[in-house]
């Protein structure tokens, strides 16, 4: 038995010799960043072993770590294996911690009538007597049969057609007797979902399951009002930051899939209890649940096999909408509540993008509308005069701060805004803490500002001979924050290699936009409006995004930053069941274009790497 102490978090974890330090950290819920999922490739999980016996440095580590790192005692947590009993003390540098990020839950909302998938029935019954020995269930059904018959016959929803399961039924006798033989029944189609007191409020829970972040909403299903709202980091992140790392774990580790499912369900229950506490409500009164996510998050939440998602042609287990008992999955909601997930489109374009399109009314807009949700994968939809095309483009995690030397997620101390003022750079950090790194919007600003000042060329090279560009051998970089002003005593910099990552990310997105527009027989200048969703998209400086060529050069009023539209879309699917039909119709309308084998993708990508508003020849 070995005890591993993780500093500075101060967490003590019991582990077995033979486990890697990363496995020990994951088992103890210590968030060490590991983009590759522990394969020894990404070198994110750098730690320092201060005390205790671990395996010697291996080839993967020698390949990935610099000599200076090795001399400084840096190891990769995924490669360093516990070698014996006793206590191991591990120090996790700040940049290796997968810090909780500022979650994005707010978004613009378009009004919608309240017509949820559940129905509310206010029922009453004649008390039993020695002459009337019917059961409680038959009693309420029979009493209400005649009343209900007339208005609900058309939908086949008469009480005689209701079905009830034992866990739902269990609440009926108590509620009837406590409330003078009155009760409120919630049904979903013909299924009884939950008994409430006569004035009980039926609640809905909507959640956007992002690869990186979760956003959750508690809704009053009678009024449509939002009663609670919260966000968190997706707890699966300890198993790998990108989708592929998690799919690999689910495929290769026999228990991986179950572990990932349990992890996300625990995370969702935490959010559920948080929003219920905000509203002073009980989670068992949540009678309907909607979850949206990309195809991988969708499968991992439902516990579906993902082998077929890990390799081309990336076929999901199901494309159409899913309706499944929520309690059976492990959500702490009403005993008969259903979990609804909207349909997936194709490839990695999942239900979250469908929700985003619904929330932004993208399919209904006149003219030419471009809607994008920027993340590790960026989904793009073009509505060209009523015809809808969409694609997914592998923009990579640069805009989430990964693969950038001083990059970090949008947590305290991250530089989120940069500008050139009075011949110098000025910066703003999240929570006004001393700067320790750059988050996505800050990285984009840094490239745009240095490009604007002529310190970076259109191809991304740093200007030779300029006093502010530092060089050491062939490494070149610009110092944004000197060491003495930084929160961790190290300079915050942006290097040629970082600019490279930004170029590759933005080229993937711009090439996707270009190919959709070309497919529609249009030019980028024909776009009437650009709807930018997602956490990163909400915080970026649009002028800078245009300056480096991430977006086409359109007038500023053409751009709309709408926040977490996927989360808002999930809420709409809860409030109005018609949105579910619209989701089905939308998916049939969307024409998915696979970019990776598109004959022009390489060419458009090669042009789009230029840091110019109009990179096209």
């Amino acid at each position, binding site marked *: 038995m070995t005890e591993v102490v993780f500093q500075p978090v101060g967490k003590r974890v019991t582990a077995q010799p033979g486990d890697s330090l990363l496995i020990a950290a994951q088992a103890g819920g210590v968030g060490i960043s590991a983009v590759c999922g522990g394969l020894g490739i990404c070198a994110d999980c750098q730690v320092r072993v201060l005390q205790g016996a671990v395996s010697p440095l291996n080839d993967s580590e020698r390949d990935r770590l610099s000599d200076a790192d090795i001399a400084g005692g840096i190891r990769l947590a995924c490669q360093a294996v516990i070698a014996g009993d006793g206590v191991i003390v591990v120090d996790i540098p700040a940049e290796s911690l997968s810090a909780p990020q500022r979650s994005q839950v707010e978004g613009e909302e378009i009004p919608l009538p309240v017509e949820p998938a559940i129905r509310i029935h206010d029922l009453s019954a004649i008390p039993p007597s020695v002459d009337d020995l019917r059961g409680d269930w038959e009693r309420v059904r029979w009493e209400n049969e005649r009343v209900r018959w007339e208005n609900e016959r058309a939908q086949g929803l008469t009480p005689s057609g209701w079905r009830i399961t034992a866990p739902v039924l269990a609440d009926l006798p108590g509620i009837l007797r406590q409330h003078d033989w009155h009760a409120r029944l919630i049904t979903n189609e013909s299924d009884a979902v939950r008994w409430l007191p006569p004035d009980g409020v039926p609640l809905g829970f909507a959640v956007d399951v992002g690869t990186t972040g979760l956003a959750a909403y508690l809704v009053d299903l009678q009024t449509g009002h939002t009663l609670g709202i919260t966000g968190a980091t997706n707890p699966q992140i300890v198993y790998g930051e990108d989708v592929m790392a998690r799919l*690999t774990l689910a495929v290769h580790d026999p228990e991986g899939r179950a572990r990932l499912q349990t992890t996300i369900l625990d995370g969702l229950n935490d959010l559920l209890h948080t929003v219920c506490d905000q509203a002073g409500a009980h989670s068992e009164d949540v009678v309907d649940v909607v979850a949206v996510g990309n195809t991988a998050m969708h499968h991992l939440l439902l516990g579906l096999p993902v082998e077929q998602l*890990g390799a081309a042609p990336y076929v999901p287990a199901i494309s159409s909408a899913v309706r499944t008992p929520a309690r059976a999955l492990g959500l702490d909601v009403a005993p008969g509540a259903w979990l609804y997930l909207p349909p997936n489109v194709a490839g990695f374009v999942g239900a979250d993008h469908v929700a985003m399109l619904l929330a932004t009314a993208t399919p209904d807009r006149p003219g030419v509308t471009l809607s994008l949700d920027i993340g590790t994968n960026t989904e793009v939809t073009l509505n060209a005069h009523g015809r809808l095309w969409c694609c997914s483009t592998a923009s990579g995690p640069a805009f989430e701060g990964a693969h950038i030397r001083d990059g970090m997620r949008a947590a305290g101390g991250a530089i989120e805004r940069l500008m050139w003022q009075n011949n110098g750079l000025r910066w703003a950090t999240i929570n006004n803490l001393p700067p320790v790194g750059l988050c996505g919007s800050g990285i984009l600003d840094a490239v745009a500002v240095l490009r604007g000042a002529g310190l970076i060329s259109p191809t*991304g*090279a740093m200007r030779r001979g300029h006093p502010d560009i530092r060089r050491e051998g*062939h490494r070149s970089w610009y110092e944004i924050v000197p060491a003495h002003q930084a929160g961790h005593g190290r300079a915050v910099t942006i290097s040629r290699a970082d600019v490279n990552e930004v170029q590759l990310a933005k080229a993937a997105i711009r090439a996707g936009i270009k190919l959709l527009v070309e497919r529609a027989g249009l030019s980028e200048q024909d776009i009437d409006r650009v709807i930018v969703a997602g956490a990163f998209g909400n915080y970026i400086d649009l002028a800078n995004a245009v300056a480096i060529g991430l977006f086409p050069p359109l007038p500023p009023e053409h751009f709309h930053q709408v926040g977490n539209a996927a989360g808002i879309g999930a809420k709409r699917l809860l409030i109005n069941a018609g949105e579910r039909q619209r989701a089905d119709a939308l998916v049939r309308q969307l024409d998915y274009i696979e970019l*990776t*084998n598109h004959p022009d993708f390489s060419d458009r990508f090669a042009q789009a790497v230029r840091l110019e508003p109009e990179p096209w020849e």
Partner: protein
Amino acid sequence: MSDNVLINQIREAVIDGQAKVAVAKVEEALAEGLNPEVILHDGLISAMTEVGQLFEDGEFFVPEMLIAARAMKGALELLKPLLVDQGVEPLGKIAIGTVKGDLHDIGKSLVAMMLEGAGFEVADLGVDVSPEKFIAEVKNGAQIVAMSALLTTTMPNMKTTIDAIVEAGLRSQTVIMVGGAPVTQAYAEQIGADGYASDASAAVRKAHELIGQ
């Protein structure tokens, strides 16, 4: 460096990634009666060798290499029919593709362009390439099979392809190169490949080395 001003302009246009200039200068050079083979060697191949060197030195990154390779490719299209007419032989023929199940294109295409820019004949089979397609190209005269995989989930398909080439009785006449982010020298050896390259420039060097030129 060539003594010819136009050839040097072609060379510089390619290195700077100015596709239109490169094409215009090649047209001009042809109109002046310069030998297409000289334009190829002293203009395009020389430029791409320099680009590869700048990349290895850490001076160029992938974007500059992509931009330069795209300029080279535009100019090469002009020369190709003329070189065939003249009977100019390529260095060798390479079949390249991303393995079955994998749709990643950019890295593989860059390697393909760099190989082409070095004077090889390249059959780019695209993405999601089955072992059968690679085998058909070997039967069609390819001396080198170059495979890429970007995912740990598709990496094993490199081994599947090698096994199929062995099965088809073509292993002795085929040189096999592998690459891609999760691939390592150790993995290449483990699956029985002849060579591994970590990037596009290294791939060119490896191809030269493997077919002994």
